[in-house]
């Protein structure tokens, strides 16, 4: 899906936990998620820490959308 959006000129960052799978399918801007069942959260953290984690991942995705890349890039 991310690849098809980018094919149509819309920069797209995918937040996915299964990075090798994403890499093989081919989207360009990949941000590794925290876990399959909660890519943007972590129930083991306090609410404030979890929110900070989520904010960090979203900011990373926004950075990915602003980064000039020549091919597939994993933003860690």
């Amino acid at each position: 899906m991310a690849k098809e959006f980018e094919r149509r000129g819309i920069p797209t960052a995918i937040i996915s936990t299964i990075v090798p799978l994403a890499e093989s399918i081919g989207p360009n801007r990949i941000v590794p998620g925290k876990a399959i069942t909660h890519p943007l959260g972590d129930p083991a953290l306090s609410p404030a820490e979890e929110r900070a984690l989520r904010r960090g991942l979203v900011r990373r995705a926004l950075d990915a959308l602003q980064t000039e890349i020549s091919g597939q890039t994993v933003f860690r």
Partner: protein
Amino acid sequence: MTKLRVVHYVNQFFAGIGGEDRASEPPGVRAGVVGPGQVLQRALGASAEVVATVYCGDDFFAEHEEDAAATVVGLIGRHQPDLVVAGPAFNAGRYGFACGRICRAVEDILEIPAVTGMYPDNPAVELYRPSLYIVVSGPNAVSMPATLERMAGLGLKRARGERLGQPGDEGYLARGMRFTEVASQSAAERAVDMLLASVRGEAWQTEWPLPDYDRVSPPTPIKDIRRATIALVTSGGIVPKGNPDRIESTYATKWKKYSLAGVAALTPDGWQSIHGGYDTTRANEDPNRVLPVDVLRELEAEGAIGRLLDQYWVFVGSGASTTNARRFAEQMADELRDSSVEGVIFTAT
């Protein structure tokens, strides 16, 4: 044993009518073999006879697909064949689509086996390989004899109802079908053998080839994120509580979009995940863990992004076919562009 009856389909060029200047030639038929049909007849041997050759101009077929296919199938049917061989079309797109369409119609309407041949990059391959036997050809007619040899062999086996071997052995493009077989060695032994062969630099073949996905050049990044409209799309199955549109929890055939107008954060009493491929407990406790509306609203309020689009798109990724996913993406991309979205965050579970 009576000889099997074979009808061969070719385009106007291989029928000897003419090149591109005659591509608008309507369908026609000749008795017996024409052009490459001689090679086909030799490959079929004594047990089968090419009783007729049906042809059509590539442009005519492409421009009158429905009618041309019906006419061609009618001409083929009149000769009561046991097998239809179309092409090979090599890397010719229009010819490939015509061969694919005719083979499909022959199998559906006449209910007899059909075989075609194409170069793997022929654009018709993607459309027809799941449902047809397409023998691998080279990019051009240099590979004609070898391709027709394999098409004849495969066609005869199909016409006689014989069991086919593996795609690689028979020379056709894998259709993605799975069969149960009894192997003499366990999977562990076979895997170790492959590994050892790989280490020794010997040839080996996987039993489970990975799909060959294409790559896309990255579009120009967002220049001014502080003015940009960002949209959320997810395959994580986050929907309004109760799943009002009953989108599928697996094997998705549809997607939906929902409003985020006035939504500062997703709440567990208003939203849920209906994804059938993961334990949704954590997502249902806090749906922002899959669809991060809360922090995007925060970043929007701080001016870090222009705005978060007031709607998001959702489907369930689990079991969704790549064909459906591609269609979803095309439909969503149109809407994203209509909403002046400059960037997408896609969350996957």
